[in-house]
């Protein structure tokens, strides 16, 4: 029955599907479409994607989940299935080693590697290196600072022009609380059971001159060093904060966003004048609070005076007199090994990480460039105070990335399992956590 309605419909459907499949890797105007899986932001990556689109290539953004762990899960599962639908991806540095070791990332040409090594901050290069090769392209780099209210630091007698220790900051907040007979001055940290908590623990250990692990290239046989004096110094800080009135009431579920209101706690009933918070957080804090100036208090807004009261200082020291090692975070661009257009994808990635484009992204999102040249982007100089930009760059040079290991998600999960909740941390925690990490890596314990 040629030409009968059902058969015609079936043929049309089949044709439609085939055409759809054939055109799925090219855009309507005949350009090659490069799909970039990016973490959610305020439009910075989309603007860069537009800038890096040409007459021949269109870079298109697909948005990944908010949480870094969920981003890893989505990308890794699809790459393990050799999905050609991913060309470029925004990668959290801690997962670079795992992806590279699994063979998910395309090799970056040597000349480009050399150029990126020269252009990027040391911390950014370290975080993107696995097996002596740069496996992803550093795009933006983040570090944490100590953000504080100037009046609170002054009332507590802290000299913020000199490096301060964790102990000093916690003591200052505790003292203000006892003087005011209230619990309104907090030291905000990220202590939910998630990667952000490990960022804090890693920075504390590195600040005491230690490291969570050595010989990462040995994979499951790497040397676990958390059971050490630096590990115990880190545990002491967590223990001191968790047991003091300086701890936020939501300490065990706190993250980067939930600590912010504790800096300007206007809408909390018990707030007394002249007290306010301290918090360690990433670089976006400045642009975040700047955006809140003039908004109503009920919607989280702050006044101009409040904003002028915002201070910033280098990350606190774990041990007095020893340089702090602030956390390193950011995003690198990975090129998929299974991309249908590897050359175009690598070209697009190289364009995305150009210093000027790093500046465009930083200006729109507050996520700072991975290179000193990126900081020269004129709009950044207008938006941010010069001393803040200098401090951020100094922080990135001093930053200590989390160790690169293909088993980082296991190691991080094992740390979270033992160190959470912060109130349970004591001097035995590092030893227990060292044993547990080894057992997990050897497959003797469930995680």
């Amino acid at each position, binding site marked *: 029955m040629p030409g009968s309605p059902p058969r015609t419909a079936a043929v049309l459907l089949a044709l439609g599907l085939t055409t759809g499949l054939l055109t799925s890797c090219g855009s309507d105007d005949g350009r090659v479409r490069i799909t970039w899986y990016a973490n959610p932001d305020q439009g910075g990556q989309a603007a860069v994607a537009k800038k890096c689109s040409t007459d021949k290539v269109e870079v298109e953004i697909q948005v990944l989940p908010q949480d870094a762990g969920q981003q890893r899960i989505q990308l890794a599962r699809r790459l393990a299935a050799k999905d050609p639908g991913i060309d470029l991806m925004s990668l959290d540095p801690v997962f670079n080693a795992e992806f590279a070791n699994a063979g998910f990332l395309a090799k970056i040409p040597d000349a480009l590697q050399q150029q990126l090594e020269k252009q990027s901050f040391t911390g950014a290069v370290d975080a993107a290196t696995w097996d002596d090769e740069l496996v992803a392209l550093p795009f933006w780099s983040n570090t944490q600072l100590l953000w504080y209210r100037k009046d609170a630091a002054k009332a507590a007698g802290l000299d913020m022009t000199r490096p301060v220790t964790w102990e000093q900051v916690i003591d200052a907040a505790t003292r203000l609380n006892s003087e005011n007979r209230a619990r309104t001055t907090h030291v905000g940290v990220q202590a939910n*059971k998630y990667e952000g908590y490990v960022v804090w623990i890693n920075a504390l250990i590195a600040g005491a001159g230690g490291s969570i692990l050595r010989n990462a290239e040995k994979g499951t046989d790497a040397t676990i060093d958390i059971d050490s004096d630096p590990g115990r110094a880190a545990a002491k800080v967590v223990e001191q904060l968790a047991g003091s009135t300086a701890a936020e009431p939501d300490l065990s*579920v706190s993250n980067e966003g*939930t600590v912010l209101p504790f800096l300007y706690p206007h809408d909390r009933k018990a707030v007394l004048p002249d007290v306010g918070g301290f918090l360690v957080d990433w670089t976006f804090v400045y642009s975040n609070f700047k955006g809140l100036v003039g908004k109503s208090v009920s919607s989280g807004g702050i006044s101009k005076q409040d904003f002028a009261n915002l201070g910033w200082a280098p990350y606190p020291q774990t041990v007095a007199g020893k340089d702090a090692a602030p956390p390193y975070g950011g995003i690198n661009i990975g090129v998929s090994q299974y991309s249908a257009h590897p050359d175009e994808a690598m070209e697009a990635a190289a364009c995305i990480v150009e210093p000027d484009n790093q500046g465009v992204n930083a200006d729109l999102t507050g996520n700072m460039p991975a290179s000193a040249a990126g900081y020269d982007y004129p709009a950044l100089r207008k938006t941010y105070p010069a001393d803040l930009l200098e401090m951020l760059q100094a922080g990135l040079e001093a930053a200590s990335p989390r160790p690169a290991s293909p088993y980082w998600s296991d190691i991080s999960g094992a740390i979270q399992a033992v160190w959470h909740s912060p109130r349970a941390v004591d001097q035995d925690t590092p030893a227990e956590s060292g044993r547990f990490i080894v057992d997990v890596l050897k497959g003797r314990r*469930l995680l």
Partner: protein
Amino acid sequence: MSATAREEVRKTAPKTGQRSGPATERGAAEERLGRRLVLPAVAIMLLVTAWPMLRALYLSLFRYRLTTPDDRSFVFLGNYGTILSDPLFWRDTWNTVLIMVVTVGVELVVGFAFAMVMHRIIFARGLMRTSILIPYGIITVVSAFAWQFTFSINNGYINSWFDWLPFIDPDTNWFGDHWHAMTAIMVSEIWKTTPFMSLLLLAGLSQVSEDMLEAAKVDGATWWQRLWKVILPNMRAAIMVAVLFRALDAFRIFDNIFVMTRGAQNTESSSFLTYRQVIEQMQLGMGSALSVLLFLTVLLLAYLIVKAFKVDLAQARGEV
């Protein structure tokens, strides 16, 4: 139809569910055709249900991780040994059993009360029934988020609404310790699924003969006596179905925990542990072993519940 005629019809009609050979050649041919017709459906069912189960069983014998495929090695029952000797597995199983027992227990009582209201109410019956059933119509993840915001120390209202209660302090961090977090998880689970329980119990309640209740009333039985001696015994099959469905459902609890605590404060359930092994850690071997154990536990649980209620399922289906 007279009583004699009804008896005649009952004798001649084929018994429901009774297996007997085909009486005629035509019957046999129809049966063969029937088998051929359902064959594709059976094949598809096997493909979508049996194949993943067999695959999980096979994978559970390996140490195999998606991001280190070269490290794959055959460990036979090693994964099961690791799981069964690990305190984490037993802690999560205990959490799951606790959540199941508490939520099903509370839901049985509250659900029964709702069912009674829905059964007896005369005024605004439709409105009342709809109001009671609304929570069940809400997607679990959505309700979990709603309850997370409710209990949140930063912007929730539970603390300010209920701080007159002795165990609720205005500064209570509901997700800050084990028992508070478990309470929040169980409250959200109970809120969400009590309507389902009451719906099943309502079906059972409507099957209790009014004549029997009337007779008991005439005999002078009090309300409690009628409840315990007439209503509940006659609803045994319905209660068993309600408890069975809800217990198995509660044993699979995942969404609420994922949204509210992500397993922090030792609030992980068995299915959450399995999720973390398979999805987060991509440990296909260990995760498959856990899913096999979860499957066996659910089977055992169903068997125990059916045994405990001493209900003859064939009788409940009206086969004999």
